[in-house]
Structure formats: C-alpha cells, structure tokens
C-alpha cells in the first residue's frame, strides 16, 4: 500500500471521537452554527454547496446570503417553517478529532428529540441569542443535558454581532448561566461569544472581539478532554442473544458496557447469583485475549449455567444491583400524561418488564429548579419517582453507567416510547419485606369450597346493566351453594376508595385497588364478581395479569351509549350532559371497549336473567363450578 495512504489511515484510526449536541431555544442559531462548522472546515461537496445556494434563495431567512441552517434542516416541513423539528446527525473531522454532532430542536414541543440527541452525547453546546439572554427553554435544555449525564457544557452566546460585539452583554449572560448551572454537576463549563452567521470565533478567532481571550469554538472542541472512566469500572455485559450454532457451542453475545474481560476471569449472573469462569472470547476474527467497554463479543463459559437474554454478566466481585423497586428521574415524552399506577413496559439494556410508578415524589420547575408537588407528568415535564417492577432487574445507578441505568417506558397499547428514565438508586424495600410463606394455599381453600376460584370482571358504560346482571349471577351461584363476593364500583367508592375522584389518575388507582382486592378474594378461593365501568384497557389488562392463567373472565356488557343515556337509571347522564358532572365516561371521558373479552353480552331486548344463565353455563362448561 502507498505509504502516505497508510500513514493517513493509521492517523484516522487513532483519532478520538467527540459526540456533542447543539441545543438551546428556538431561533438561537443551532443549525446555522453546525452549517458554519461544516462550511468553514471545508467539508461540503460542490454539489451540496450549489444546492445550498439554490435553497437559500428559495427558503432562506438570510436575505439571499447562504443560509447554513438549510444544510441540516432536512425535512420538508422544517425548510418550509424555518425551524428544526427532529434531531439531525452530521459527521465531520478535523486533523485532530472526529465529530458526530446532533442538531436538536429548540421548540418545547420537540424536547423529546433534544433528549434523543443528548442521550449519546458527551458535550453540549448551549446556544443563547445575545439579544434575548437565557430563556426558559435554555434552562430546560441545560437541565436535561445535565440529567442525561452530560458533563461538559459550552455556553455559546450567539448573534453577538447584533449587540455590537459587546463584552458587557456577554459577561452578563455568562454570569447568569454560571449562577444557574452551578448546581447541575457539570465538570467543565466554557463560555464563548460567537456569530454563527458570520463565523466569528467559530473556527478562527474574531478580530472584532479583542476582549475575548479564549480559543475559537472548534479549537476548544478539538481539545476538550471528555475521556470517561468506563473501562475502569466493573465488568458488565447484558446478554443480547444466546449463540447456539450446534450442540457443542453455547456462547453469550452482547456488548460490553462497563470494564473489561479476559479468559479466566470469574463472572456472576446478576439475577441468579450463579458464577462461572470465562473460557473464550469468540469473534469471527479469532479469539481475543481481552475485550473492553464498547466491544461486541461472544463469551463462552466453563460451566453450564442457565443464562438467557436479559441476564447481565458482571464482575463476580462487583455485581450490579438487583431489585424490583428503584427511584429514578423521569422525562415524560408523550402527549398522554403519566398515570401513576398504570402498567408500562420498561426496557433497560436487554430486559423488558412490566413496571409502574408507585409514587411521584415531585416534578421540577425548569426555571428555578424548584421541586413541586405533582400527581402526574405532562409532555416534556421532568420528575422524580419510585418505580415498582413485575420482576426484579439488574441495574447500576445512571451516574455510574448510562447503559446500565438508563431506561425507556413504552405504552402497552400504542407501543410509543413515552418516557425516559435514569435510575438514581435501588429501593431496598423489596429485599427487607420478605414474602411470608404460608401453609394453606389457594388450591386448598378452593378445594374446601368445591369450586375453581375466578374473577368475573364486568366492564361497560354506566347504565349498561353490569350490576344488574352481576347481581343475578351471584344470586344464582349462591343458590347452588357457591362461595362468592361481589365488588361493585359505587359501593367500593363509599369505603375502600372513598378518597379517590374521577381524574384519569384516580381511575387508574381505583382499578388497581379493586384488582388487588379481587386477587386476595381469589386467593381465598372465592368466585369474585367485579362490576366496574373500568374504561381503560391498560388497567383491565393489569387486573388480568394479577391473577393466574384462566382465572380472569372479562365480561363486556356491550350496550350502546344511546341506550344507556336513555335508561339513565341514576340520572347521571342528564347531569353529565348538563355539565354538572365532569369526567363522565362516554360523555367527556373515553371508554375503550375490550378487544378480546371472554364474553360479550348485548342487553338490548334481552332479559338480564337470560344473560345471567349464559354466564352460569360458561362457568359450568369450563369447570369453574360442577
């Protein structure tokens, strides 16, 4: 190979990589700055440049001059509106370093896209318009950057040309920022006055600001030390995939997210606590004598121990925490608000489990960083909460290891990513409150009663006939000598749930308590009848998952809204339509009909006794009652 080329390639391979993002409020010049960096670093191809010149004339906001923002705002809607909607990734390199830059949107409604860009960055350039100073969105982005573990921040006071290159303005804004950011845990803070549009202090020092003694922005980015100590942390490898090409090979494939490993090292499986020794580090390019953080490898072990996807292999002498409860910071990213008590899917590393927020401790006012009491989190709000999981999970605090402590929350029905969480610490409650093993179990209690316990969950609109039918079913069961209990929505709200109202959050908690109660009664061996509107699929599914397979029978009393309103047995629809009752299901609060109910009952023109008889024969056919 040509010697010059060889030397060049070797130099490329040795260059360090800096991943950074540009953030700040809308119109502060983030995209323009990136365009300027690419342009001044001579990294634009000729056809890209000529397209840019053409675009600038058509969409540009700079009066015919080159509009650098158009280099990065790649979506049609962005170019038309002159704003950034989603994060764009650009790549460039200088003699000293390679860069991946995430250009993130400034609008509050797209904050989640800013968080996307921040999650993999080591440094944030926070832009401020010199004329406007720090805005709410500037503060929000500084806070999110710090929350997501970014330890280096550059305050770029942009458009300094529009305030006459004033040192006084620059000093005032940087002092304000210092005050705000002092408690955000940044390791380094660097402030610089720039004009992205005209290139002052971007790649070379500006002659217009002799009072500024620091380096230009690019020089700083080339030299800032962001080396993380992840390679010196304890070994962690979440198992992605069990590699079994044949009976003689069983390997565990995954990416090392902490520390290093070599054959002969002792590892532990975090959840089971089983230990073994690394036999080989297998790759297509041959076996490795050592592998470290960031590498994707396949390990074989000396012992046959049970390991599957979702397990985390750890250094045996420094294991990850395992718990089903923890406290975490949470950024909410969905238009549908967070509902404490609702079951979400939580994905952390390679594990996905069912999880709920059990206590929302507070939310954060991004302007003052004050902690405020909160019942829910809305889009783009940030809070601190306790989580409870359906199964224990292996993790480390986020501050120790992003890959072991960062998780997303997924809505169970839309599958949207609705939240991003950062674990603060595990809660030990789960380990200190042990489950007391009892001698008499559900089967024994049920056998005594000669029945199979189950929950008959009646759902439907108010006035659909749930309670009437449930009542008749219970009468018929009692007449046959069955042991039952009926939980009725209205009645339970007089006692157990008297402290709850009708907001979405309270409705979720209402159902959670009733589902827990039904579960206890099933454990007692009873046939439980639950008659609740229970309008949301998520909570009905939660109730279903609390009891065993085959113990949950969803009965959808499917009466059209018009019929219910006409029946209006308690006069509630009349009040709701008159606006006297708020959040009434079917009127100003939604009802989500079941998709796979065991039984669907149509009540129009059919007597409740007929429906009750149908349920009884269902129970008999399936062996719940003899």
């Amino acid at each position: 190979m040509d010697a010059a080329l060889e030397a060049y390639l070797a130099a490329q391979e040795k260059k360090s990589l800096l991943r950074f993002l540009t953030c700040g409020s809308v119109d502060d010049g983030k995209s323009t700055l990136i365009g300027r960096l690419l342009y001044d670093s001579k990294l634009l191809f000729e056809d890209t440049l000529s397209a840019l010149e053409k675009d600038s004339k058509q969409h540009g906001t700079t009066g015919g001059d080159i509009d650098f923002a158009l280099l990065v705002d790649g979506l049609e809607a962005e170019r038309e509106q002159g704003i950034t909607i989603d994060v764009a990734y650009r790549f460039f390199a200088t003699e000293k370093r390679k860069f991946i830059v995430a250009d993130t949107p400034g609008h509050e409604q797209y904050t989640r896209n800013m968080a996307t860009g921040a999650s993999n960055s080591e440094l944030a350039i926070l832009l401020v318009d010199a004329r406007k100073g720090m805005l709410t969105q500037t503060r929000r982005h500084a806070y999110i950057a710090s929350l997501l573990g970014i330890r280096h921040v550059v305050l770029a006071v942009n458009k300094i040309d529009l305030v006459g290159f004033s040192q006084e303005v620059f000093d005032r804004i940087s002092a304000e920022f210092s005050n705000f950011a002092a408690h955000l845990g940044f390791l380094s803070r660097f402030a610089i006055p720039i004009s992205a549009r005209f290139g002052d202090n971007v790649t070379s020092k500006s002659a217009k600001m002799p009072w500024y003694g620091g380096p230009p922005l690019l020089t700083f980015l080339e030299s800032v030390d962001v080396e993380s100590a992840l390679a010196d942390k304890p070994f962690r490898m979440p198992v992605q995939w069990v590699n079994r090409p044949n009976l003689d090979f069983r390997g565990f494939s995954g990416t090392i997210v902490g520390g290093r490993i070599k054959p002969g090292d002792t590892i532990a499986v975090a959840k089971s606590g089983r230990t073994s020794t690394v036999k080989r580090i297998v790759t297509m390019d041959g076996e490795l004598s050592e592998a470290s953080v960031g590498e994707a490898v396949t390990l074989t072990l000396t012992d046959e121990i049970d390991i599957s996807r979702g397990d985390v292999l750890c250094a045996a002498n420094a294991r990850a925490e395992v718990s089903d409860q923890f406290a975490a910071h949470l950024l909410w990213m969905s238009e549908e608000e967070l509902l404490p008590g609702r079951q979400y899917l939580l994905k952390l590393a390679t594990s996905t489990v069912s999880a709920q927020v059990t206590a929302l401790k507070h939310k954060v006012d991004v302007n003052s960083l004050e902690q405020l009491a909160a019942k829910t989190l809305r889009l783009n709000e940030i809070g601190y909460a306790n989580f409870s999981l359906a199964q224990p999970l292996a993790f480390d605090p986020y501050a120790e290891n992003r890959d072991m402590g960062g998780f997303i929350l997924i809505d169970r029905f839309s599958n949207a990513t609705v939240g991003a969480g950062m674990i603060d610490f595990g809660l030990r409650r789960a380990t200190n409150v042990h489950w007391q093993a009892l001698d008499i179990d559900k089967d024994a209690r049920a056998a005594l009663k000669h029945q199979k316990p189950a929950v008959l969950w009646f759902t439907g609109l108010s006035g659909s006939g749930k309670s009437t039918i449930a009542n008749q079913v219970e009468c018929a069961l009692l007449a046959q000598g069955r042991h039952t209990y009926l939980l009725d929505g209205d009645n339970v709200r007089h006692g157990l749930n008297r402290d709850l109202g009708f907001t979405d959050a309270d409705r979720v908690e209402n159902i959670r308590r009733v589902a827990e109660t039904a579960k206890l009664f099933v454990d007692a061996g009873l046939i439980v009848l639950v008659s609740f509107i229970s309008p949301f699929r998520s909570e009905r599914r939660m109730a279903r998952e609390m009891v065993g397979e085959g113990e949950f029978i969803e009965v959808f009393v499917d009466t059209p809204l018009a019929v219910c309103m006409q029946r209006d047995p308690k006069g509630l629809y009349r009040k709701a339509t008159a606006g006297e009752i708020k959040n009434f299901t079917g009127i100003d609060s939604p009802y989500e009909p079941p998709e796979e109910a065991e039984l669907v009952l149509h009540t129009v023109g059919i007597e409740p006794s007929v429906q009750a008889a149908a349920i009884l024969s269902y129970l008999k056919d399936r062996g719940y009652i003899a």
Partner: protein
Amino acid sequence: MAVISHLRRLEAESIHIMREVAAEFANPVMLYSIGKDSSVMLHLAMKAFYPSKPPFPFLHVDTTWKFREMISFRDATAKRLGLKLLVHVNEEGVARGINPFDSGSVLHTQVMKTEALKQALDKYGFDAAFGGARRDEEKSRAKERIFSFRTATHAWDPKNQRPELWHVYNTRINKGESIRVFPLSNWTELDVWQYILAENIPIVPLYLAQKRPVVSRDGTLILVDDERMKLRKGETAEERLVRFRTLGCYPLTGAIESSADTLEAIVTEMLTARTSERQGRLIDSDEKASMEKKKREGYF
C-alpha cells in the same frame, strides 16, 4: 487503557443493533442491494452471529435493470456464504412494461423499487427489515432513527418519530406494522471504504475503474450494459476509463471518470472528492425533498 479504534467502534455499534433485531423480532430480513454498503452490512452480519449464520434471510428487490455484474456478484456471494437469498421482482410492473427509459425514473423507481419492496415485505410478513442507509448520504436520512417505525401501509412519519435514547431500542409493534433498521446509520462513505479496505471485503468490480462503453447523456455517463440501452440520435458509445461511486439501475446511475482501479486508489480518490456520492443518482434530483417523499411512501 486501549480505547477501541474508530472502525471497531462503528463495527460494534452495528453488531449490537443486528443482535437486538435478531433477538426481539419474529421474522426479520436483511435487504441486500449488492452495493458497497450492503457488502459491509452483510460482512457485519456474518460477524454479529459468528459462529452461527445470520438468523434471517436476505432479500434483493430486483428491478430487472441492475448492472449484469451486480447480479452475478449477488449469486456468487450467496453461494459462497451459504445465505438464504430471496429475490423479488414486481411482475405486475414487468407486465406493464415499466422501464427507466420510457416510463421515466420517477415511475420506474416507484413501481419497480418502492412498490416491489412493499410487495415483498407483505408477501413474507417481515416485521423488521435491515437497510444499509447512512445518515451522511442525504439530509432526510440524517433525520432518521436507527429503528424507524413504519405503519401497516409502510409509511414513515418524519414528524412523529419515536424518541431513541442511548442504545435502548423500542422494538414493540402491533400486527402489520414494521420497523426499518439502519445499522450503518453512523458510518460515513469514507468509513465504508476504509472498512472494506481494512477487512478486505469483496465488492462488485464496477466500483473499480476499467474501460467501459458509456454514453454521455444530459451530462451523465451512462453505461451501455445491455441491448435495452437504445442510443439517441447523435449519441455514440465510447470506451472510457470509468467507475461507479454508487450502484443502482444502470440507466439511472452515472459513472465517473476515474483511474482508481484498486481499493487503495478509491480511498485516495475519496479523500480529494469534491462532489457527494448521490450526485450520480438521477432519482434524487427529480424533485425537491424527493428522498423524504420516497421514504414516506416506503422507499428504503
């Protein structure tokens, strides 16, 4: 402390993505377009699951207008590596006589590529499809997630993408929906060539300079690859020393004059390149924001 090198870091990220898909989806497929990016993607897939074979099939959407050398390279590669290769042609489009010369590049691409791809994905019921697109290729690609959600009608909604934090990928979908996965998102064109060079990955010889019969048409050098290429009045095919920076349908892919006939020479040429690789793609300049539009409709 040994910091892993730039290419190793990119390689590890891509492998991580591929394993995540193999573990979480029921029926994934890897799109194989025979180009340099596909060659790198395939090589990474061989690494990701070693000593196992990639646990998914490979799909080539054949427009019937690919360079002949691409097709023979494709078949030789599948045989050499023992891959399960599926080839799909939009027969309906063939029957309608759709072709890049008479139908125009827009209709041809729409019917023979985008529609054909959707047909194939529906036919086999794939719930995830790997594509070799990179963010440095084009502005709307720079905006796309690594795991990019598609509705049941294969549409992309660029204004409503799932947030994608860390390396935690949301792989949940409902029936009929799918995810397009781009393991090479963070690679640049130069990275791809350096990796091909470093790993000695086989590529279609069309990337290397050679004397080839070309016609200069509307400022673009088109290869006379078979008899379907009809010369217009005043056009003559002449032998020139050319190569291709990207490969697509031969009538829609412009050659560049170059004497780079080795991988080393290509990388050297890349280092001094003054135009972007997509310039040779005639379909990109059809209309404004055309890549985004095609992507919303289901193009890769």
